């Protein structure tokens, strides 16, 4: 095995299952084949939008170019529910849960990790633009060589003994978060022949309502792999895709220390009836 197993957690299991419903050589599809498949879906979306169909803002969960999605998406429409009781609240996290130093991924070992030191900062907001306060943000990522500390990652790139690639923080009163880390590299995976993921950081977020719970990936501006990546392109709308790309921000960059990026995250709308005191809490 020469490429890492991202998206083929257990090769024998997943590829057999997925390919059974696509074709027996699914794992050997060329990039051109996948790109054409992506472009066709995007063209149909553009045409539909021109004919008045709604703008899409979330990824398609049924997106065949991402092979592993084929058997893992519901085929029935999501059922509309009015959120009730527990769904209108989220778990509370505090300083018992998260230490301030967990936001710096470069100080978790004895030495400095290799790679380009970066700061990523931004705000977590709800759909009404309110800051999401004192909530948990978790991140994980590959190192500067494109390797995860994970037993299933077989990509023959070096592990960095000084980098685990896992961080946490709590948002501030203004919804702000900040991580110091190393810029992750792209890495190969087995979706198709010569498949590479654009560099990304995985983000996990909580809102004020449990219905806002989300996991996503932050990307870096100008990545040449964007148009080739079926996970990123599962979001059919360019404006929506752009919402996952951080901005290089020289005001976040610090003198002789780290380059800086900003990325704000908007959760879905809160359905709770907000009281004055909660807003001011």
């Amino acid at each position: 095995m020469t490429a890492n197993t991202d998206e083929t957690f257990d090769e024998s299991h997943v590829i057999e299952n997925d390919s059974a419903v696509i074709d027996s050589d699914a794992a050997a599809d060329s990039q051109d084949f996948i790109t054409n498949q992506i472009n066709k879906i995007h063209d149909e979306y553009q045409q539909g939008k021109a004919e008045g169909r709604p703008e899409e803002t979330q990824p398609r969960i049924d997106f065949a170019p991402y092979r592993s999605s084929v058997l893992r998406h519901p085929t029935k429409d999501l059922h509309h529910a009015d959120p009730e009781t527990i769904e209108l609240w989220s778990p509370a996290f505090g300083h018992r849960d998260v230490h301030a130093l967990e936001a710096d991924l470069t100080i978790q070992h004895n030495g400095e990790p290799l790679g380009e030191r970066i700061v990523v900062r931004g705000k977590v907001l709800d759909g009404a633009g309110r800051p999401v306060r004192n909530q948990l943000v978790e991140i994980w990522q590959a190192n500067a060589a494109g390797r995860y500390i994970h037993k299933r990652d077989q990509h023959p790139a070096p592990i960095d003994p000084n980098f685990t690639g896992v961080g946490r923080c709590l948002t501030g009163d203004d919804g702000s978060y900040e991580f110091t880390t190393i810029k992750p590299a792209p890495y190969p995976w087995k979706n198709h022949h010569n498949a590479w993921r654009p560099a990304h950081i995985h983000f996990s977020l909580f809102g004020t309502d449990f219905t806002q719970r989300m996991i996503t990936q932050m990307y870096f501006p100008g990545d040449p792999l964007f148009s080739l990546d079926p996970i990123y392109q599962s979001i059919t709308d360019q404006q929506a895709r752009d919402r996952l790309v951080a901005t290089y921000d020289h005001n976040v960059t610090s003198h002789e220390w780290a380059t800086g990026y900003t990325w704000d995250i908007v959760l879905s709308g809160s359905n709770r009836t907000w009281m004055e005191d909660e807003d001011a809490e």
Partner: protein
Amino acid sequence: MTQNSTQLVATPGQTIGPFYGYALPYEKDSQLVHRAHAGSIRLHGVVYDGQGTPIPDALLEIWQADETGVISRETGSLVRDDHTFTGFGRAAVDNEGHYTFTTVNPGATQEGKAPFISLVVFARGLLNKLHTRIYLPEDTDALANDPLLSSLPEERRKTLIATREANGDLYFDIRLQGENETVFLSYPGA
């Protein structure tokens, strides 16, 4: 004061991918209460794909009221003290797609309401999160009056109701696709 006024477009979700395993699980993540806690139960089941094959790389989270129907505002989900009930749990499935939480039966949050546990599902291959509910099977009157369950055809409704095992545990499978596909939910403003 603002209410339900969505002005900003939500950031898109993405798959959890395969490499969350050293980032998201934590010690006692699936133990909302200690196993020795009076009234503790096991909530367990299997996550399946569209061919009925267990999914070995899914991560589940639950969020629920306590036995009396109170929604906890306590911190400490990530660093459990074995006494404080925070109402939140996280469980990565095992190699056979099986998950286990140690928790309590949630009480009704309002008189006559059917108690349920809120569940969110993440998996490699699943491009966005999925929400659903795990209803307790006992209060059949409350279940019959539940607005969500009443809006579903009978064969779909049952995918949201857990089975009570002889020892008091709750069993609940999650089927992402295919026959008996679990009902997954969308909410206003999403």
